[in-house]
């Protein structure tokens, strides 16, 4: 568990730090070129990519039952996110407020956690 938590915590800390720095730089100097503004706005994605690599590597190290549990949880997250985001897309067409794309990942992560909890009850 420690082997998973330490890189995850480091990755999240790096992501938060990079996000704060990039947002402050972007807000502080509007004369940056477009290329620099793009680079700064995407800078938090580097630690985010490290987080993704950590998660994929951790799943690769799981035993067969844990992999099955994760597969089922990810399937729930994938299908649930598709249903909810498409459903809300239709609702936007009838006047509900448009939401940012930033909402998709927290939604998927929440459904993933729910899927893992359901799996733990099923296999526990």
């Amino acid at each position, binding site marked *: 568990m420690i082997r998973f938590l330490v890189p995850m915590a480091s990755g999240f800390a790096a992501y938060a730090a990079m996000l704060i720095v990039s947002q402050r730089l972007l807000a502080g100097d509007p004369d940056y070129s477009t290329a620099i503004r793009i680079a700064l706005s995407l800078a938090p994605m580097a630690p985010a990519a490290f987080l993704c690599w950590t998660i994929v590597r951790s799943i690769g190290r*799981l035993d*067969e*039952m844990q992999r099955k549990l994760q597969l089922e949880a990810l399937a729930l997250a994938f299908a649930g996110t598709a249903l909810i985001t498409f459903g809300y897309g239709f609702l936007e067409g009838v006047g509900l407020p448009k939401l940012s794309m930033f909402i998709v990942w927290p939604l998927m992560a929440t459904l993933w956690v729910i899927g893992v909890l359901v799996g733990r009850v*099923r*296999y*526990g």
Partner: protein
Amino acid sequence: MKNRIRELRRQRDWSQSDLGARLGVSRQTVNALERGRYDPSLPLAFSIARLFGMTIEEIFEPEQE
């Protein structure tokens, strides 16, 4: 699937973690196996049988259809 894993483990005074370490799986997987909540793959079933010095059929009891 019903099985004798818990009985065989206790005969050897192993904890679930001990058995998991010997099989290369997590304690949670051992618990799920013992409770019949998870059926092992064929390679894992062979590993379990080999560890206890028995056949798969002597450890696992398929559900009656």
